[in-house]
């Protein structure tokens, strides 16, 4: 295996045109998989030093985050805490200090685990992924970027430059909970995130995303529209519980059974709505 630290995007595109090449950024997924023999690249392209892949800014109504920006820098960024507080909250629960000091959100997304925690807030904030190839570059909606476990629409020869999300949810209430085996360093058995805009006791807008209960992290748009406009009354949490357990089709695996996952998501959803019910509106 060869290793190359690429210093700009054109060097990266050159490297990506070679067979057997693979991008490494923080390496928290890539190095684990290489050691397990699951990945055998012949050329490792380290993108951590490419200037254009770094930084957090607000531009044209979007919060934009460079692909190589560390999770720890994203979590502490005042811009992120202001415009996407749920993202900062979720990152605090991703891995550990040491993992976040290497790991990146873009790596989390391209890795495309059904349990990717970073995907939950990004889906809720309607994030887009900037995909750059030799011939063109485009913004792809994260919802259509994931195609299956470990799979995305990224083709060989392409890389991710940045992620962005429209701002304008300041004041929305947030919820995120993942269930795993221990507090830190937990791969979610099931996770649920919400963005809620409540006005005069009614749901103006609700966005729901779940992890580890489908081949990819995903939004539950049908339930979102069923609940929009509903009064947040005492009957709602239990009704919502039934709605959500009916809407997901998790699988059983070594970490948990399908029934357990369905129950967990149902309970989390009911709990989230109940907690907003008891808060002064």
């Amino acid at each position, binding site marked *: 295996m060869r290793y190359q*630290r690429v210093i700009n995007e054109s060097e990266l595109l050159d490297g990506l045109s070679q067979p057997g090449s693979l991008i490494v950024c*923080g390496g*928290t997924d890539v*190095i*684990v998989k290489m050691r397990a023999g699951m990945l055998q690249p012949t050329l490792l392209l380290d993108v951590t030093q490419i200037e254009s892949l770094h930084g957090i800014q607000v531009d044209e109504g979007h919060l934009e985050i460079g692909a190589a920006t560390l999770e720890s820098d994203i979590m502490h960024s005042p811009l992120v805490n202001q415009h996407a507080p749920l993202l900062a909250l979720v990152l605090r629960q991703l891995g*550990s*200090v*040491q993992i976040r*000091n290497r790991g990146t959100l873009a790596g989390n997304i391209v890795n495309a685990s059904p349990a990717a925690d970073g995907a939950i807030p990004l889906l809720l904030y309607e994030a887009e992924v900037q995909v750059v190839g030799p011939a063109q570059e485009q913004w792809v909606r994260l919802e259509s970027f994931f195609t299956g476990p470990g799979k995305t629409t990224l083709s060989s020869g392409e890389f991710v430059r940045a992620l962005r999300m429209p701002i304008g949810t300041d004041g929305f209430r947030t919820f995120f909970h993942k269930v795993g085996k221990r507090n830190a360093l937990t791969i979610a058995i099931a996770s649920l995130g919400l963005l809620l805009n409540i006005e005069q006791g009614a749901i103006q807008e609700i966005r729901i995303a779940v992890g580890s209960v489908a081949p990819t992290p995903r939004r539950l748009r049908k339930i979102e529209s069923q609940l929009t406009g509903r009064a947040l009354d005492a009957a709602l949490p239990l009704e919502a519980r039934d709605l959500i357990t009916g809407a997901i089709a998790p699988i059983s695996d070594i970490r948990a059974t399908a029934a357990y996952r369905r129950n967990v998501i149902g309970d989390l959803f009911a709990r989230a709505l109940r907690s907003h019910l008891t808060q002064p509106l």
Partner: protein
Amino acid sequence: MRIQCTVNGKSVERDISPDLRLLDFIRETLQLTGTKEGCGEGECGACTVLLDGKAVNSCLVLAMQADGSVIITVEGLADGQALHPIQEAYVEVGAVQCGFCTPGFIMATYALLQDTPDPSEEEILAGLEGNLCRCTGYSKILDAVKLAARRMRESR
């Protein structure tokens, strides 16, 4: 491949294989065996070192990724024969039993106190969430961090 970096204040230059991990570079190439390998997968923190001022798991970094960087390992904390206040505190309160996790905890503590000189209990727990200890039950470790933080603030 040629790697050049600064380890515990000294510049080092070596020829290494590109698939060597930073952990192996430190332990085997440089023979600094204070840094430990527990899980080899980022879960236990025994291999924690400071890379350009940040705590990282050296088992999840390729040595070549540290080319040009500044690295501090547990061997870099003591000042000659005098232990660092963090090391002193761990020994004094009895936060060390088998000791295998200790270098990693000490480096994580060092990173925490560098950014947060007066951490709350919650901040200490968050700062050490990436480190596992199978012996102490953690409460002595918490005491050690608090003691070290106090002494380091006082001597400032």
